[in-house]
């Protein structure tokens, strides 16, 4: 991958910047560029999320995809953020066997991986139990 693909997502992935519709007040993360509810009359602006939420579902990944092998086994969860949107994230700093649906989490800045041996190191969010 060329570097711009990672670079352009830095605000969203490093600082959890999503979007919020000025018409219906709905918050989106990952960011959307059209509000699916309001469409033409929607007005999406950048919006920073506080990164706190709860686990809706989770799984422990034993067979990891390319680039994630050294992290397995790792827990992966769908998290509902307090502002409404859901995202998928790895859980970090925890024993994956202790994770339960409903657990409170907060997002943390972490190294995600590397684009091959000589490629860019990329960062993003993982969730930790609180």
């Amino acid at each position, binding site marked *: 991958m060329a570097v711009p693909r990672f670079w352009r*997502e830095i605000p969203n992935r490093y600082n959890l910047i999503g979007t919020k519709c000025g018409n219906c007040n709905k918050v989106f993360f*990952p960011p959307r560029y059209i509000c699916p509810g309001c469409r033409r009359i929607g007005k999406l602006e950048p919006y920073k999320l506080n990164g706190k939420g709860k686990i*809706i*579902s*989770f*799984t*422990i*990944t*034993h*067979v*990891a*995809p*390319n680039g*994630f092998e050294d*992290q397995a086994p*790792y827990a*992966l*969860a*769908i998290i509902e953020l307090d502002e409404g*949107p*859901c*995202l*998928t*994230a*790895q859980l970090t700093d925890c024993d994956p066997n202790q994770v339960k*649906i409903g657990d409170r989490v907060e997002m943390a800045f972490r190294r*995600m*991986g590397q684009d091959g041996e000589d490629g860019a190191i990329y960062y*993003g*969010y*993982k969730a930790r139990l609180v």
Partner: protein
Amino acid sequence: MRKVAIIGVGLTKFGELWDVSFRRMITEAGARAIEDAGIDGKQIGAMYVGNMSAGQFVRQEHIASLIADQAGLTPIPCTRVEAACASGGLALRQAMISVASGIHDIVVAAGIEKMTDVLTEQTTEALATAADQEWEAFVGTTFPGLYALMARRHMYEFGTTEEQLAKVAVKNHHNACFNPCAQYQMEITVEDVLNSSPVNTPLKLLDCSPITDGAACVILAPADKAREFTDTPILIAGTGQASDTISLHDRPTLTGLAAAKKAAELAYDMAGVGPNDIDLAEVHDCFTIAEIMAIEDLGFCKKGDGGKVTEQGETAIGGRIPINTSGGLKGKGHPVGATGIAQAVEITQQLRGEAGKRQVNGAEIGLTHNVGGSGGTVVVHVLRRGD
């Protein structure tokens, strides 16, 4: 709009076909369907081919031209359609629409995937491109991971058990034993599934469909001309297609596929039938949990009861609503682009009464349910005997 019938079907063997190339597989499936229909190649008006990712699996794009070329059917128009694992179902729908519209009479709907020409990690990576690359795959999500997230939530909300999930795999392997084209013609037990290695908890290796090479083909004709070719035309009585968010996390529920419900509703309405009228169905069991959610989404049982009715044998051959008599994706194999067409082949053979030891007696109406990705595209067809 004209009514449309299936007049011929063809399948290759499904499995790890190391000695057979992409181009040989598709021509083999096509030749069998043409022979079954008793038509001449030159009568074909158009071809639609479902294929998820020849670019990633065999580094060949522009397969529509390749296929028309290798079939010896240039200059007949050939179109490739893609919706991840629902590519086959979508090809069938596009072919049906082109016959129904009156633009073409005899149309081929085919599907193919050659998945073993790259290493397993590359296959997994290619499949993962059906998920959201930026917000699912980027954080380390795979397809088993997405379905595991659905399974965990289904277990949490409805008390579905790992044993009930295992029963889906056991049943589908059993059915595959009677299908000469199936990849795994062997029985497995609940213990085998429960003791298989974890992939993404609660899903284990034997909860997952395999990596498969295969091609499938059906020939369509206007229903009023179908009897010129066959005594047992199978009508495509209903078709439905629906979309949903590409990311699983953007959906209000994880325990069912809204697109499957919508596609089923459209197909049922068009056919003028409901779930109780269906005699058997081929559903998209890419993972065991997917079959449980499918039978709920299609209305074959109450929401949350999918595990229970599976355990009680209602979905076995001889049960109330036989599901995946072919062996399904789990037992027959899952060459992703071919799957949707292979489902239609199985239902056609069943409705013709040609399914041998896996025959559902007196079957008159069948259904196919083909899912792309984690449910971002779903295509449902209702097929019925034309007599």
